[in-house]
């Protein structure tokens, strides 16, 4: 991989998630995501039997992989990776073939019938370019997500990942996912 000056990533402390949906609605508002589709979501698992129950809430969105399968399969170059690591879609180049949706190990993309293009989380690239945080990160009541530049040793995310254990989802897919779930 080419050396990046920046490597944006997310660390998610899922145990802090209370499944309140603030991130989902904030994303909908920020990015004009139509009802019925979603760029981010919260996985819910319930274990055990009454009254010994346990629930896990785990927010998820595009993993902004280091070696994104979606970019590899895109025939037009619409899916691309920015120098800061953000995987984005240039919708004017998207022909709606949906190969990327099949290639994505995380099912993070959806097709917009109304526009004929594929969409997904781009970490609110337009907000990043203004120096703001992604909408989901900013709005969260319990501050589940930490966003930042892994290449910056002074960043909160860099320091967090140095001292905390974490896992990534579907490591075996080999795409180098950049959402780090703190353990």
């Amino acid at each position, binding site marked *: 991989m080419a050396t990046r000056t920046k490597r944006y990533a997310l660390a998610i402390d899922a145990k802090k998630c209370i499944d309140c949906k603030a991130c989902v609605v904030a994303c909908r508002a920020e990015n004009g995501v139509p009802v019925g589709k979603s760029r981010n979501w919260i996985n819910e698992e319930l274990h055990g039997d009454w009254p010994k129950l346990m629930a896990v809430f785990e927010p998820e969105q595009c993993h902004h992989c280091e070696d994104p399968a979606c970019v590899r399969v895109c025939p037009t170059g619409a899916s691309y990776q920015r120098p800061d690591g953000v995987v984005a879609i240039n919708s004017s180049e998207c022909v709606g073939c949906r190969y990327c949706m099949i290639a994505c190990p995380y099912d993070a993309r959806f097709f917009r019938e109304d526009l004929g293009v594929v969409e997904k989380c781009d970490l609110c690239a337009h907000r990043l370019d203004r120096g703001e945080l992604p909408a989901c990160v*900013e709005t969260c009541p319990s501050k589940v997500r930490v966003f930042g530049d892994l290449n910056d040793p002074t960043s909160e995310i860099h320091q967090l990942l140095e001292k905390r254990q974490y896992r990534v989802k579907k490591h075996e897919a080999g795409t180098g996912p950049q959402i780090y779930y703190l353990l």
Partner: protein
Amino acid sequence: MNRRGFLRVATGGAVGVTLLQAEACHSPLRQQKVANDVTPRVEIPTTCDMCVNKCSMIAVVEKGIVKKLNPNPENPKSKGMLCARGNAGIQQLYDPARIKHPMIRNGERGEGKWKVVSWDEALDFAAQKLSAIKEKYGPQGTLWSSSESFQEVFFRNLGQAFGSPNSVRHPTLCLASVNLAYSVTFGTVPSFDVQNARYIIMSGANRLESFITPDTMDLVDATTERKARLIYLDPRFTKTAAKADEWYPIKPGTDLAFILAMLNLIIGENRYNKEFVSTYCTGFEQLAEHVKQYTADWAAEETQIPAKDIQRIAREFADAAPRAIYYAGRRSSWSRDDFSMRRGQAILNAIVGSWDRQGGMVPNAKVELGELMFLPWDDPVAPRVDELDKNFPLAAKGDGVYLKLRENVLAGQPYPVKGWMIYKQDPMSAIPEQEKTLQMLRQMDFVGVIDIQMSDTAWYADVILPESTYLERLDPVEMLGGIRPVVLYRQPVVKPLHDTKPAFEIVQGLAKRLNLFQYFDYTMEQWIAEQVKTLPMDLPLEYLKKHGVYSPAEYPKYGTTLKPDHRFVTKSGKIELFSERLQGAGYDPLPVYHPPSEVPTGKFRLVLGRVAFHTHANTTNYPWLSSFAPENTLWIHPKAADSLGIGAADRVEVASGVGSVRLKAQVTPKIRPDCVFMQHGYGKRSPWLRLANPGGSDAQLLETAWDKVSGGAALHETFVKVRKV
């Protein structure tokens, strides 16, 4: 806020004009001008109104359109967050089903035929009707209902100036029992320092789904960072239960047994704070004697929580004090003995000394705001229609007791009430036994509604006076007391989209026609100018326009009341464990346990609660929110569902003694087998609220029952039959 005084601002509009012209400092990030159609992008700090928390936020407005609402981190209460509802505020503004013009009914009540009219016509009509009722029945023949809004003060003042003693607010559908229990004990209702607590017990206060700032965020932090231990009692496995250290699916209505057994052990084992009790409390000896009967073994039978757990929790709680709190919650009453249960909590918190200490209960700090003096009116002559003096002598006079009030209005006792003005309230959805609310609406000669959407109540109105939403109007400045008090500013971020007005202007319009304008002869700008005069800065209004919120840096402060000569606002001047005030009013001076009625065979106890993405019954028509639950479901335990032959997603009929609804079953182990649960705000009648129509309305099922002391509607006293349809 209903302070009387002599009109001081006699110089007319001069102050207001100056303030209107005073533009705030223009920082590149935040501009305070109302965006016009060509402004490319402005960010305007203001205050959310999607629920009661009043979080600070920043509206991003592009070319006159609100694009995004972002959290404003300057507010120490909302702490830089905006929840799902706050983010969906845009959908309230741009809701196609908003009431866009004043309308007068043009058919039978509830038939849905409306005539769009001018403001003059609508206000003339309302004023004529109100005057006719005053003529025939006296001013007490009108009822003025309203809920929390920064502009509620004007509506309430109009009702009083009109001469009606009958204002009724939301607390008896909400936290009246909590407020009264803490007031009786401490003379005030404190906040809970969740952020610094080390041991927290919650009875059903589902704080992670029913947001209260900053408690919700502090609780997540406290539990997930292992700062505090959370013990959670609830018949449902809520999101709060999921994060709790221990969850007990307590038998509903028995929480007081749990609390009394804790008191028994803590006193019996000398684990209470003797110095605190002897310095600040009164009635300890009577309390100690009283709780001797309530052992852990006894409580285990009542609550279905093992005695050894009750004992351990009691010891851990006392050990963690003063950073130990039995969290009061902010919630409706559950049982007819709800007040006693809240009193028990207050007493428990008191005897371990968790008062005015870090991590305990803290009396609310305030920021003084100025008040505009306006012409006083005569006090209403007639007594209240809910006869509080007789029925609920300790209840808050200005709030009223909703269920008793409805009963008396329906009976025409002690006098007829024939006019109903309603502001920002939906009694059809909010009050148990909807059929009776409908009867109450039907027996009125006149119903006027001020709202932003066609609620089920508005649907039955005679005239609808549409209010501008919180993103379109300038509101009075609001102070929220708390551990960290805040002063909030709400300014318009766009011009009104439709032919709507702020409640203040609607009130002025009515006042003019009712010959009461002399009491409302001021502008919003004058009102605000008086309010901000007391703030400790050179240009307070400019500060608020720029920041949206002000919070003094010196908080939190602990221990301001911990002086042996401090007088609590109680009869004895002490914290009253034993209450002579209660005794004098004919109630138990100490909390006495009465077991709840047993669930009849073949029935279930209906329990209610919240989800984080809805506010009461207000937000179910906004697609961004209802997409998470397009209809409500009936939670039913797998064992119970099996016995009734109910499978996942089957439709069921739920029937109580007063009504029945149909909705989808959700077979889930997250609820006790003897209870069922349904979400509030669905099954609406109003065809304008298309997305809120599916599912069933709990208001149709709930039976009329109230807490004996506060009069708060007891919402867990209804038993229902469930069958597959």
